[in-house]
């Protein structure tokens, strides 16, 4: 039953509504019919723009929402689940953590530096608009092969953009991942995650309320930046979107820093009821979403919006994606306080509208109405789609390949050669070239920064800390979306547990191709299913996330990449555990069991240039037991270091334990002959899940704790002196890897590849 909507005269100078114009705005026939039905008349140009933005994939999640509804979102400590600017969990003592991840893939493909920088800016605003002070950033990046000059340009630009923005605002970037694979050529993935801290009492939601309350635009002026950016982010990358370059936006981290301080002061002042970032589809989506959440009407006068350029139309003002802007709903009569706080920070505030009783979304230009919709239907009437889905037969065939038949290369007779080859694969190699450009220590809470498993950030005034990590192996998800997504959750949880953290909750970023292609929608559906299963099994609800579809380029879709951002809680700073060996003579214990499986491994990709086989099987109950056992042992004070086995398998994990920290490199002597029935390459480089390499001075206690949890465990060797080599004995014989060789392979690989790149 559509409410009556006033007739709205077309604005002189605006284009006529034609089928071509409708198509240009990305509306299908059905969607346009829905619009006509909602309005009961033909839309104006402004209204068409508003709807095209709000009903774009980016704003409406029209292809993913039905799937996202299946994810677990609840736990006693979840204060805010999906649907807000960020998720929020309680961590005790009246403290809470707000966190969310966001993608800026398409903008970064076009302009890596600004694309990445503005991505960081957006996610920062999502977190501080919840009333939280950002305390840590993470980033999850995917690129094509570094052999390509264009890819090196994208990689260098993205890393600089992430760094410059976060460094300037003064938030440490403490963890992340970077992987390289030809499938991301031309369509890099740039996901940024922000974690903030707040008092539960300071939590504020972006819900417009209170008839008569003024709506205030805060921060930077509105320019013609990124108009239609939201629909831009919902299209395949193509020659056309190359032509859309001027839509790229420029970030201003300096203004962001002022906005951050001003916003937190505003929220603490109690003078406002709601605040939201003007992100994708700028003023349009922020105002419409806040109104919908509060089920109220709003009216906005575009003439009152502070603009950067003369002659901007309502259409442009509504859809501009100029950065560093906020929309605030203030308490009636307290506008003065609001502008006083903004003046203190040299920022501008302008009342541009108000909350009204009438259930309409109305935009005026002065006193003439240029757009009017029946309230929340603008948001709620967006069509939802469940496209056809089936698995690509090629992928099924690849998964079915018996990779054990792939013949070894002659060089592999020397396992040290194989090991160094894998260590120097850019996906495995140290990412110091990246995080050396990030301020990892500002705010003086970073206990463990980049370079181990998860990052550890202490909570001042308590004895506790957060453990943070993003993870996803796109190759696994490509070969088996459901299992691959389960593994992404498990690996993130394992990384968190290795530092002594109890996995609490996740945010996630679903980076997929064009959902209208059945094999892509299949990947999306199965990955979300697997993610949900793993989150249920590990008791880590999903508190929010982001969906980025149409990650394609003329050469095809990227690997389906559901990035998991995990937040864990460390109960006592005494439990903080590092991943590299600490003390000579400590016993090395392997928790979990190796298998022969080489499917989907880095070994196959790097040594044999093959992407094939089934990803490692993952048993969610075993993963849970492993985490419990590990945390018991850590809390019992018997674990000196813990490092999970992931990409590259046990061989890489052991090498990393020896030399990942260049300030303290220990050798080790390891005996794996217990698994003599396994082929060496499976034993050393297979990526069996559910494994952690622990070093301890009390092995019996560790083994007993593992047994209690039903986790297979075995002492496999001892930590050697500083600078000694890594000796490994297998059924195939003994080999000795000098640390210098491992160090060189692991630490110099990316610097060497990036050397020729100018800034």
């Amino acid at each position, binding site marked *: 039953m559509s409410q009556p909507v006033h007739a709205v005269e077309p604005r002189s100078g605006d284009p006529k509504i034609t089928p071509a114009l409708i198509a240009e705005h990305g509306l299908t026939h059905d969607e346009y019919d829905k619009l006509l039905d909602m309005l009961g008349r033909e839309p104006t140009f402004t209204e068409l723009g508003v709807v095209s933005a709000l009903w774009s994939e980016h704003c409406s999640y029209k292809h993913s929402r039905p799937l996202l509804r299946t994810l677990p979102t609840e736990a006693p400590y979840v204060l805010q689940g999906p649907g807000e600017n960020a998720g929020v969990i309680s961590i005790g003592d009246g403290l809470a953590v707000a966190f969310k991840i966001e993608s800026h893939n398409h903008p970064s493909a076009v302009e890596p530096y600004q694309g990445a920088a503005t991505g960081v800016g957006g996610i920062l605003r999502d977190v501080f608009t919840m009333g939280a002070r950002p305390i840590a950033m993470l980033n999850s990046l995917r690129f094509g092969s570094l052999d390509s000059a264009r890819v090196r340009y994208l990689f260098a630009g993205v890393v*600089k953009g992430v760094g410059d923005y976060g460094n*300037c605002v*003064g938030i440490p970037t403490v963890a992340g991942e970077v992987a390289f694979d030809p499938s991301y050529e031309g369509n890099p993935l740039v996901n940024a995650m922000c974690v903030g801290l707040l008092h539960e009492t300071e939590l504020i939601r972006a819900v417009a309320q209170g008839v008569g309350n003024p709506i205030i635009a805060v921060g930077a002026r509105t320019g013609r930046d990124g108009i239609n950016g939201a629909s831009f982010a919902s299209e395949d990358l193509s020659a056309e979107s190359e032509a859309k370059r001027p839509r790229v936006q420029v970030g201003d*981290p300096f203004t962001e*820093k002022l906005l951050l301080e001003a916003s937190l002061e505003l929220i603490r002042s109690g003078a406002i009821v709601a605040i939201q970032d003007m992100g994708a589809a700028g003023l349009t989506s922020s105002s419409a979403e806040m109104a919908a959440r509060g089920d109220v009407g709003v009216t906005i006068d575009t003439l009152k919006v502070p603009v950067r350029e003369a002659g901007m139309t309502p259409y442009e003002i509504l859809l501009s994606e100029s950065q560093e802007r906020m929309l605030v709903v203030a308490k009636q009569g307290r506008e003065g306080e609001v502008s006083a706080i903004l003046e203190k920070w*040299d920022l501008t505030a302008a009342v541009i509208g108000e909350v009204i009783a009438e259930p309409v979304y109305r935009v005026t230009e002065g006193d003439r109405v240029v757009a009017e919709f029946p309230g929340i239907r603008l948001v709620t009437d967006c069509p939802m789609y469940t496209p056809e889905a089936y698995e690509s037969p090629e992928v099924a065939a690849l998964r079915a390949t018996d990779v054990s038949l792939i013949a070894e290369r002659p060089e592999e007779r020397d396992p040290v050669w194989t090991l160094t080859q894998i260590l120097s694969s850019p996906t495995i190699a140290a990412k110091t070239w990246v995080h*050396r*450009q990030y301020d990892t*220590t500002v705010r003086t809470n970073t206990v463990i920064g980049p370079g181990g498993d998860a990052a550890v950030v*202490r909570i001042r005034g308590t004895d506790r800390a957060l453990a943070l990590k993003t993870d996803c192996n796109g190759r696994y998800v490509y070969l088996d979306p459901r299992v691959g997504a389960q593994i992404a959750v498990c690996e993130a949880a394992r990384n968190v547990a290795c530092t002594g953290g109890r996995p609490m909750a996740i945010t996630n970023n679903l980076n997929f191709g064009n959902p209208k292609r059945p094999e892509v929608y299949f990947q999306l559906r199965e990955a979300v299913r697997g993610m949900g299963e793993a989150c249920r099994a590990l008791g880590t609800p999903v508190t929010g996330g982001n969906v980025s579809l149409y990650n394609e380029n003329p050469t095809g879709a990227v690997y389906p990449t559901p990035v998991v951002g995990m937040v864990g809680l460390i109960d006592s700073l005494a439990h903080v555990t590092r991943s590299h060996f600490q003390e000579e003579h400590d016993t090395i214990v392997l928790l979990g069991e190796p298998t022969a499986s080489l499917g989907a491994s880095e070994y196959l990709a790097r040594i044999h240039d093959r992407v094939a086989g089934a990803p490692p099987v993952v048993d969610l109950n075993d993963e849970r037991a492993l985490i419990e056992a590990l945390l018991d042992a850590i809390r019992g004070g018997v674990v000196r270091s813990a490092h999970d086995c992931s990409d590259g398998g046990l061989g890489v994990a052991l090498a990393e334990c020896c030399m990942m920290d260049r300030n303290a490199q220990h050798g080790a002597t390891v005996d794996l002959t217990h698994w003599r029935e396994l082929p060496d390459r499976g034993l050393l480089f297979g990526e069996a899940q559910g494994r952690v390499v622990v070093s301890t001075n009390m092995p019996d206690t560790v083994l007993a704790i593992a047994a209690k949890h039903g986790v297979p465990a075995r002492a496999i060797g001892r930590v050697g002196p500083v600078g000694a080599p890594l000796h490994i004995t297998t059924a195939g014989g003994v080999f000795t890897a000098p640390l210098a060789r491992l160090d060189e392979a692991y630490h110099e690989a990316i610097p060497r590849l990036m050397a020729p790149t100018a800034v």
Partner: protein
Amino acid sequence: MKFGIVTFPGSNCDYDAYQAVVEALGEDAVYLWHKDHDLQQSDVIILPGGFSYGDYLRAGAIARFSPVMQDVVAFAKRGGPVLAICNGFQIACESGLLPGALLRNASLKFVCEHVRLRVESADTMFTNRYTAGDVLRVPIAHGEGRFTADDETLNTLEGDGRVVFRYVGGPADADEWWSPNGSMRAIAGIVNEGGNVLGMMPHPERAVDALLGSDDGLRLFESMLARVAV
């Protein structure tokens, strides 16, 4: 003793300096607002790190004109102790409190890591709790830290023992000069002629807690306690 920490628009290590003084050192600290002409009777002024005015144009070039800087300069001319860290060092150079300039890192990249700093002079109000030759582990995090000055200035600095900290720890030899940012003569920190203004790119306030990797910076703050009359 009371530390006044200036907050410029874009400062982001003011909080770290505050925590170092209050939590690690156990002294008083107040934030000083850039628009005010009020140092609130502070005994020591800290110009903290960050990106004042976004480091636009040149790091420190705009902040130097903040109202509070007139008072800070006057305070320094009266011999008042000023600790200028990172962006604070850049501001101090721009405002003439210290000689030279801090240019974009030779690598053209922002660099964040723990570096080794050698104490070149223990005979300043900022370093009397160290011994010359001590090698400290202190974080750096900057994109424009390449200390640059003409030879005459450099020679004077060396001659007068005003080079306080130097980057060392070359891959080959731990004592070898080795600058992560291309600074001339590997200079990491200097004092003014009066010895009461210290400018340094590394962050002593981030090195006051072993849990975070080093507490080698704490003695710098303790040195001021020892020497500055209250």
